[in-house]
């Protein structure tokens, strides 16, 4: 029996493929690094100007927002699977996944791995640059704990990307809405400012998705921000979202594929 071994090999093949494609665009990493530096610079000077109750010093707001910036790249990576599926449909390579014993569902989960890992790296680099250039104070004793917390957060975020990928397969339009959703989550997820500043209904919306909890947990572990809820409560919330949404999103992908197969449009875009 070598089933699990060949399956792992297929997952790593997709990961390696995406790495090779990424590396073939030589300036991409440098360009994203520059974007991170510009964002950090912008928010560093904004933090010098703005004095908000709840943030005792400009540095505390800067620390708050740097974690938000790092999480935005993770957020983008989770939704990128929809765009990747669209690209595969356009290039005709999705057909390869459909025709392979590995299959399209595992293929789609596998193709989300590289963006997720890359967003880890980009997030870490953003925090590192924040510390090196702008004197961000990381809370080193709890920084290692942020890694498993981040993995849990990703498991809670990934279903959103898979659902949009399912929409892309069934309607050929799903990836269009991802930028809207990411913008909305950036607002209600407390990435750039505390959700307590939002109107009541928006605060309710903030509680109905996993990003707010993940942001809070990671801020607490990375820069020792105070938490509204307990750490355990926030982690349980993330776990709950992952446990419910992951199977649901995989089922949505399965249904979308079956729908495309019945209509005969599965490999068209």
């Amino acid at each position, binding site marked *: *029996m070598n089933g699990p071994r060949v399956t792992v090999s297929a997952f*790593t*093949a997709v990961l390696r*493929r995406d790495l090779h494609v990424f590396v073939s665009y030589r300036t991409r990493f440098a360009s994203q690094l520059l974007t991170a530096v510009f964002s950090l610079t912008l928010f560093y000077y904004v933090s010098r100007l703005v004095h908000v109750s709840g943030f005792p010093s400009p540095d505390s707001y800067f620390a708050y927002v740097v974690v938000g910036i790092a999480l935005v790249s993770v957020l983008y990576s989770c939704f990128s699977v929809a765009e990747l599926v669209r690209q595969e449909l356009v290039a*005709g390579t999705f057909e390869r996944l459909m*025709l392979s*014993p*590995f299959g399209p569902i595992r293929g789609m989960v596998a193709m989300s791995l590289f963006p997720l890992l890359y967003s880890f790296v980009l997030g870490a680099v953003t925090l590192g640059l924040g510390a090196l250039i702008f004197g961000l104070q990381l809370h080193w004793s709890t920084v290692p704990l942020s890694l498993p917390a981040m993995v849990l957060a990703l498991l809670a975020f990934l279903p959103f990307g898979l659902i949009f990928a399912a929409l892309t397969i069934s309607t050929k339009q799903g990836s269009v809405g991802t930028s809207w959703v990411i913008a909305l989550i950036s607002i209600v997820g407390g990435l750039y400012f505390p959700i307590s500043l939002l109107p009541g209904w928006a605060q309710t919306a903030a509680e109905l998705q996993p990003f707010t909890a993940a942001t809070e947990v990671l801020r607490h572990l990375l820069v020792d921000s105070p938490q509204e809820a307990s750490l355990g409560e926030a982690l349980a919330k993330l776990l709950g979202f992952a446990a419910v949404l992951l199977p649901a999103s995989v089922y949505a992908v399965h249904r979308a594929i079956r729908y495309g197969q019945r209509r*005969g449009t599965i490999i068209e875009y």
Partner: protein
Amino acid sequence: MSGSRHAVAVPEEGVAARADEVAAEQGPALELHSSAASPAGAFPMALRGVGKRWHKKQAPVLEGVDLTLDLGTRTWVGGRNGAGKTTLLRIAAGLIDPDRGRAQVWGYTARESRARYQRLVSFLPAGDRGLYARLTVRRQLEFWARIALLRREEVGDRIEEAIEAFDLAELAERRVDRMSMGQRQRLRIAMTFMTRPEIVLLDEPLTSLDAEGAAVLERAIEQLLDRHGALLWCSPIGERLEQEFDSRWLLEGGRLVPA
């Protein structure tokens, strides 16, 4: 409605051996059925009463199509542009569902056992799509071998075999977007055959191929038939074909008629 040169009998080696190999890889739950173990009268591939209609108000593109592929035979299906050849192949490959009827490999549909079906059937779609432009030939082959779930110890050998058999040695480290259309087609054909499928479905395989490329394809087909595989080749009427086929059919008005 099947080719008749070879009787339907599974040899001890070849297909049956491959069946055992796949079954061993997938475990008892996915035990592969050769004709000895499959439902009575099962063929390597059979299309039974296949119908497909794209729009309610239009005539069906396929209507009650029956076709069986026997061991060690090559079958040609021709037709005018838009006759439904690609639709037929996509249904046979398990990519899309028919509205009526079914496509089966050894008595099983892709719906019932997708992974097993895809291990046994390999499909070369028409055109030049399905390649990653920024990957080299070797990486493309490796990617395909791994998502085809070949055993890890087999992957390296299969890649080298494919590079040699399809005359890709000089191109092995070249990116696909820097290759000609004919070279890309050779790579696509190499990917179709490298997993040693039992059934190969080819949609206009001669597209962009020069004489040398066509000869390479012919050798691959001969090897497939030598190991008791089956071939279905679709191309438009009027394409000059030098290959011999065991059975020839035309797709007209959604139905297969002898050519």
